[in-house]
């Protein structure tokens, strides 16, 4: 479901989720591998950018998305493929490069990139429904390798991220203190697209969907496209007042027309009253005259035309229509410099509906709607009231997230399935399979408890590890919520050593066992004429064969024998080797260190097999 819903708003409706818990849904997750494989994979930065880019473009990212971004980075010379990795394993990236992906590759307008320990900034961006790319470490462990993740939620104690470093990395939760420690290692690297996620704005607001070059003005719960820059200027709109918004607003406020006319305007002052004379164009005869409610109202329009002082209405306006009184210009933000009766000091209002002044219900709503960077008029209460017809209802978060139509229409809080009862960020409607248990929700990590923790209709799935026991290789898995003991699946091969290697209850079954291989106190006490040690390096297994029936294997092979035995094969020698593993997937006799109590010559195999080594005893004569 491609619906984006800020759950804190739903929480406000139903009162189920604490106000300081924020979860951002609708941000698509993509793991950083594939493309490439996990080894040497450094795609977390590009993949984080892909997730964010796809979010604003309403796309589902896939392997090709990441490959395309990597190709672009390569073509731009920003990074080069790793010398020792796969082509699509990527390479180290910086926040600047990720910013270029967002701006130049995805064309997302504007970004905020900073290195600042500001958790409240992240919280504000989540309120504005903006996922935040952060520089952290693998597993959010401050000592581990550097890593990028995308923050999509925040609570008092946890940060919720899309971790591209995991196949199921969506909505991973990490301890907040771990996040802060890890974030610090990147000097708090933070990157976010400048956007606001509100779905409704009051009349007069200028909005520009992220990724679009179109600027709209909100009018009567619809969007009017301002056709071009000349029109924008002639209508005396203010560039500083454009709010970048998520493109889904187009699903909620329909595009209802085009502002494509450039009016001719004059401003008159007649007996301390201000008027706007307006024609549809300079050569048009269609005209109208509007009176401003006050000087403050006039000033709020920021008209560039000079004021013409008249004692009476000029003759050329005689046939014009008389327009309505003009109050504070729609979209104007004002704050009273003194107490405005009935409102807290510092309350910010926005003018709308030509005469209405609506306060913001709270600071979070103001931030969420993206007004914090817009110009603000600070005026005495009397001046505000002189330019206002009525003080209307506050604008709440619910208003801002109310979609008038289309896909993103906010779901009614009256539907119990849409209420997140356990505060884990998911409701039944959002596939929470146990909405009474905050530890169970989609994308949760599956743990061995007999429960379906991640709501994928499977319990304890995928919880299998390799393990080893004395007799071979096995698996260690979760069953009915309990980890089993290591279960033998691949027993070792039985070798002639007097030991039950494969734990089948039989010793050296199917093999001819030389006496020397058997544990024998008598034999052990013998003093051998020949003593050699075959030592293989770390991780290798040594083998030595010193007669037609005797051989040894192990970490270090002790060749304890006699010249008589050594001569069984016609000459005094034995062969040896070092293998990577019992399967002999690789081997190298040169790796062995040979130590003997008599003079020997060590050489490449000549008698038996060239891939082996041979130890020859020049002072032993065989008869």
């Amino acid at each position: 479901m491609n619906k984006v819903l800020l759950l804190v708003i739903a929480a406000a409706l139903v009162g189920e989720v604490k106000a300081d818990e924020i979860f951002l849904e609708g941000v698509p997750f993509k793991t950083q591998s594939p493309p490439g494989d996990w080894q040497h994979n450094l795609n977390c930065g590009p993949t984080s950018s892909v997730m964010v880019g796809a979010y604003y473009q309403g796309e589902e990212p896939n392997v090709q998305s990441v490959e395309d971004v990597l190709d672009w980075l390569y073509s731009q010379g920003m990074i080069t493929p790793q010398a020792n990795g796969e082509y699509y394993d990527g390479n180290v990236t910086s926040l600047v490069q990720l910013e270029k992906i967002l701006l130049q590759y995805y064309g997302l307008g504007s970004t905020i990139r900073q290195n600042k320990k500001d958790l409240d900034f992240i919280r504000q961006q989540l309120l504005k429904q903006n996922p935040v790319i952060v520089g952290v470490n693998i597993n959010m462990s401050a000592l581990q390798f550097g890593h990028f993740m995308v923050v999509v939620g925040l609570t008092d104690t946890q940060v919720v991220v899309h971790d591209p470093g995991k196949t199921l990395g969506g909505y991973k939760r990490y301890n907040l203190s771990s996040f802060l420690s890890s974030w610090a290692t990147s000097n708090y690297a933070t990157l976010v697209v400048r956007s606001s996620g509100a779905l409704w704005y009051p009349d007069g607001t200028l909005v520009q969907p992220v990724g679009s070059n179109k600027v709209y003005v909100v009018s009567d719960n619809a969007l009017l496209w301002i056709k071009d820059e000349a029109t924008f200027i002639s209508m005396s709109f203010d560039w500083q007042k454009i709010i970048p918004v998520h493109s889904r607003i187009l699903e909620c406020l329909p595009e209802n027309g085009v502002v494509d006319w450039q009016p001719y305007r004059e401003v008159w002052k007649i007996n301390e009253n201000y008027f706007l004379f307006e024609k549809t164009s300079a050569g048009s005869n269609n005209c109208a005259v509007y009176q401003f409610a006050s000087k403050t109202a006039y000033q709020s329009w920021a008209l560039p035309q000079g004021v013409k002082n008249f004692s009476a209405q000029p003759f050329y306006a005689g046939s014009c229509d008389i327009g309505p009184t003009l109050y504070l210009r729609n979209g104007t933000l004002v704050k009273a410099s003194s107490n405005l009766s009935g409102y807290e000091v510092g309350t910010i209002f926005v003018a709308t509906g030509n005469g209405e002044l609506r306060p913001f219900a709270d600071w979070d709503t103001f931030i969420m709607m993206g007004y914090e960077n817009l110009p603000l008029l600070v005026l005495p209460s009397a001046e505000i009231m002189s330019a206002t017809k009525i003080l209307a209802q506050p604008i709440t978060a619910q208003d801002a997230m109310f979609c008038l139509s289309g896909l993103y229409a906010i779901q009614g809080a009256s539907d119990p399935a849409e209420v997140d009862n356990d505060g884990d960020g998911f409701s039944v409607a959002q596939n929470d399979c146990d909405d009474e248990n905050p530890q169970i929700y989609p994308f949760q990590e599956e743990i061995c408890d007999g429960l379906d923790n991640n709501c994928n209709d499977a319990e304890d799935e995928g919880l299998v590890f390799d393990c080893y026991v004395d007799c071979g290789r096995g698996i260690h898995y979760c069953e009915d919520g309990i980890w089993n003991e290591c279960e033998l699946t691949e027993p070792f091969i039985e070798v002639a050593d007097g030991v039950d290697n494969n734990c089948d209850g039989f010793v050296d079954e199917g093999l001819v066992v030389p006496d020397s291989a058997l544990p024998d106190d008598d034999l052990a006490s013998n003093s051998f004429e020949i003593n050699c040690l075959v030592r293989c390096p770390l991780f290798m297994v040594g083998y030595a064969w010193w007669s037609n029936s005797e051989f040894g294997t192990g970490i270090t092979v002790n060749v304890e024998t006699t010249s008589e035995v050594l001569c069984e094969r016609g000459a005094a020698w034995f062969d040896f080797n070092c293998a990577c593993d019992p399967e002999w997937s690789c081997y190298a006799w040169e790796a062995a260190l040979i130590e003997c109590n008599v003079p020997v010559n060590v050489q490449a195999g000549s008698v038996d097999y060239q891939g082996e080594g041979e130890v020859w005893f020049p002072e032993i004569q065989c008869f």
Partner: protein
Amino acid sequence: MTITHNSRSMVLKLFLEVTMKAFSLVCLILCLSGCLPRPVFVLEGDQDNSSVDGSQVFDDVIPSTKTSSNTAWQSVEAQSFNFAIPENWYLEVIEPKEKAPNDANFILLIQDTPAEVRMGALVVEDCEDMDSSNCQYAPDYTAIQIFVYEGEADSATLSWTDFFASYYPEVQEFESLALTSMEEIDAVRVSKVDGPWLGLRRVFVRSGDRFFDLSLHSTHENTRVVEDIFWNFVVNFNFGGKK
């Protein structure tokens, strides 16, 4: 020779210029006594890249090509460990400011450059042009990084499975390895992961109540020599610490 310092904790300084003569003598003695690295051994033949379920198996254990080690080594001491590093390399000990439950106790970082190296996927400061004189990171480097975990309450009985579950949850499968030089030590290599797995070569070693994560990182295309150095380093590392 200088030692890098990242404002973290203890930095071990090796003033080789001052002590070169004395050090050479020590090296000579150590060489004669067999304390410096043995030559690295090499293998030939195919490596095992199979997997029980077709998943990726890493080839991070055995050197795959024949090399010879001409590296000169120097003995150093850090924390409670005596070990050898290549001459003219740099050693840094990194300790967490505030150790989180799953953090290593400390990291030994050995590298062939005095400049800071960028391991991991993220460059902290913008350093787009690596040739820029403003860039503080080494464009080319070889480094050996050792994470040391010790002193956990249950580490003496901690299984490899539980160790990975706690410290490296991305590890899904591992395989044991035989360490011929120290029989009391067991080692594993990771064969399947669900997460970025960095390092040209990487091996985990357990000794007593300590766990070690040793990895090799290099930007060089030809890695034969550095792999040779890495395995020499591992073979000769005193995992038991100072006795």
